[in-house]
């Protein structure tokens, strides 16, 4: 009797729960799909031209309707008006593990690296990313609206990344680019995680061997005689996509010899890598420039130790000055704090030689370019995704607050933090 009553009660509870969920999701749907917002800023950094004094960003639905000075942009009736001292595009984190790595740092929420084998490019971040991870909310509340999320450093080839928005509950909702890049690492973290490779030479030899196999695989796939074509191999398929240029290869490398090893392999196999971390890149400015590759520079405040012992807070400025395309990233943290925040990393870069505009670009439009999503995000322009951040002062100042974050036209946060 009691059990039955309990069942009935709990069913009733469920009914109420789902009912409420339905009602809420309905409101959510309505509010996001019909968003009409006017963001007014004393200074609007569009990142597609000079900053606008007393600017307005009109948002309709999920996209930007219009951007311009208040004198030229009329705010139609019914638009929700939000005011800010400074307005910027939603911030773009060019490399993070947030969503794969969780806040608790216990085995069940650490999905950023598989260590069963050193070469596993077939693993997809898509299958591991958790949009409800608390750290996603943390960085979103500090202005991050787009993230290039992938595996952490530590395996020669660790899998492929994705580009996601920071607001939404399912992978389908948040996905911007399901393809991303194939992620590689050279350096001490790899040697620590596996019996083999144990040295730099061995690491490079192993990656080259896999690329040679991928070349063979591609060749066989093109056989006219279908019976001679190889069985489908997810691993070689991923590497073949790097060789064909369908996917970019991101190499997390910190030391100068490792950076050179990447440039050598890129030349040998004819692909264009993106350098990630690149602590000692300031020693190889000419070589990197000549190779024409972009650099996702390590977090400015990354700790000097191990492979990053020679890190400099001025590297972003040095590379930018040389004309090398750069972006900044939150990177990977194994302990406390569990993630860095690109807004703060860019701020320290701006205090160490990078101009304000270049520092802001490194976490907006330049970052969007490096990860290949600049058609949708990174600047405030008509037709682009309505990702906007509101500040009550200079975005980089320690004591300024992020007072509003809009993702895809949805107001994700209105609290000053």
């Amino acid at each position, binding site marked *: 009797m009691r059990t039955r009553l309990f069942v009935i009660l709990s069913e009733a509870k469920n009914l109420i729960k789902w009912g409420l969920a339905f009602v809420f999701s309905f409101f959510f749907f309505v509010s996001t799909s019909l968003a009409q917002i006017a963001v007014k800023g004393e200074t609007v950094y569009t990142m597609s031209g000079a900053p606008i004094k007393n600017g307005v960003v009109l948002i309709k639905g999920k996209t930007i309707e219009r951007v311009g000075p208040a004198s030229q942009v009329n705010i139609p009736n019914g638009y929700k008006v939000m005011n800010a001292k400074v307005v910027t595009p939603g911030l773009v984190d060019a490399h993070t593990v947030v969503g794969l790595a*969780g*806040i*608790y*740092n*216990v085995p069940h929420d650490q999905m950023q690296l598989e260590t069963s084998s050193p070469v596993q490019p077939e693993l997809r971040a898509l299958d591991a990313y958790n949009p409800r991870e*608390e*750290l996603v909310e*943390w*960085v979103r509340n500090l202005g991050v609206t787009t993230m290039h999320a992938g595996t952490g450093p530590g395996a020669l080839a660790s899998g492929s990344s994705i580009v996601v928005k920071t607001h939404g509950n399912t992978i389908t909702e948040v996905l911007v680019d399901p393809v991303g890049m194939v992620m590689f690492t050279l350096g001490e973290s790899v040697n620590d995680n596996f019996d083999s490779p144990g040295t730099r030479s061995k690491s490079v030899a192993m990656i080259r061997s896999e690329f040679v196999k991928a070349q063979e695989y591609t060749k066989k796939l093109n056989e006219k005689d279908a019976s001679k074509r190889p069985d489908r191999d997810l691993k070689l398929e991923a590497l073949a996509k790097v060789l064909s240029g369908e996917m970019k290869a991101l190499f997390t490398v910190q030391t100068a010899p490792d950076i050179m090893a990447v440039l050598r392999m890129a030349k040998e196999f004819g692909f264009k890598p993106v350098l990630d971390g690149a602590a*000692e890149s*300031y*020693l190889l400015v000419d070589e990197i420039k000549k190779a024409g590759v972009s650099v996702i520079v390590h977090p400015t*405040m990354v*700790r*000097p*130790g*191990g492979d990053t*012992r*020679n*890190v*400099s*807070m*001025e590297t972003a400025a040095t590379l930018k000055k040389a004309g090398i395309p750069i972006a900044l990233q939150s990177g990977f*943290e*194994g*302990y*406390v*704090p*569990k*993630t*860095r*925040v690109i807004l*703060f990393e860019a*701020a*320290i870069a*701006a*205090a*160490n030689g990078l101009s304000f505009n270049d520092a802001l670009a490194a976490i907006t439009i330049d970052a969007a370019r490096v990860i290949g999503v600049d058609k949708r995000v990174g600047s405030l322009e008509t037709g682009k995704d309505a990702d906007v951040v509101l500040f009550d002062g200079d975005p*980089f*100042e*320690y*004591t*300024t*607050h992020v007072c509003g974050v809009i993702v895809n036209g949805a107001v994700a946060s209105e609290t000053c933090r």
Partner: protein
Amino acid sequence: MRAGTLSILAIFLCVAAAAQEKPHAFRGATIIPIEGAEIQNGVLLVQYGKILEVGTAEDVDIPSDAVVQDVTGKVILPGLVDTHSHLGDGSGGDRSAAIQPEVRILDAIDVRSNDFKKALAGGITTLNVMPGSGHLMSGQTAYLKIRPANTINDMLFCKDPLNDICGGMKMANGTNSIRSKPFPGTRAKSAAMVRQQFIKAQEYKAKIEAADGDESKMPKRDLEMEALVQVLDGKRVVHHHTHRHDDVLTVLRLAKEFGFRVVLQHVSEAWKVAKEIAESGAPCSIILLDSPGGKLEAVDIRWESGGVLEKAGVLTGFHTDDGITDSRLFLRSAAFAVRAGMSRQKALEGLTIAGAKMLDLQERVGSLKPGKDADFVILSGDPLSVYTHIEQSWVEGIKMFDRANPDDHKIATGGYNVFRTSVFLDECEGGAQ
């Protein structure tokens, strides 16, 4: 490299001698003395490693033989006090026991480590270097001044390491010290082990008191007990790593039971138990983290703690826990506390005098007052602005860091072969956070 370092040291020593004899006046800066109001167009006068006078240009007579440095447009703060640091490549207790009060970090510090220059680049001139948090009690900490040093004695605040109290006692609770045997496996066991040890120390102390100076009645010498008696006597302050609200209350309970003086360190969830902390009278040394988590106990850490503690009336300071946060960016800690509700005045005190009080060094450092040590930093602008750089750090009248010097600039920003030692982050071995 080493020869270079030595020659730099030699230069410092020469400069020191010169600077010590003549008074040195710093003129034109905004001086933030911490104790007392900000002074516009101020003069700071120092000699023989001590502060002679601080005041406005009208109030302070600059002696005719003084070396005058024009610092118009700059900001002068007292040298910063870091109440919790792991610089100097030292380690404390080993794996043999969970409670090792006899271990002294001063026996393990490399005074030649470039780490200390890193602290100077962040404006830090006084440090509490601690053993790690992987033990219930990992050993005695060392209060250091970053002077030109050849041996650890050159850096210690105390005069005689054999007889003086040269630091505090590092303790920890929560998950870091929960490990396999002989360490505790639960929180309750952790507290029980600590209580048992303090009861033993109480008995040891009673025997000493009963002996009343009679050598033949004295208990056998025991280094562990001697250090704990210093704690019971209130001469050696406990610096207690603690994160979760219930762990914080456990520390306060034990401190009350045994009557020891305690500084709460980290205190991630201070904002949840600020009233209880205030009632206990224990100060808090908190840390700024860019994001919460990374370990279960730090999931609820918030920037708001500083402001909440201030409102509750708790003496609140900051620390770097270097390598958890970077000594060169210590000013950030105060700035983020202000961002989340702490007053500017209390936040600046948190970098200076509050920390000095936690180390019983408030008569020597932590504010710019006549008679105190001439430890100060010259900043390019407002201390809470990201764009501000620490231009010079002075310790007892000696210029120890100058950003205009290319080698020092490299310490401030990092670069090739600047830091040759690795940052350790293993909470059990060396022990941060």
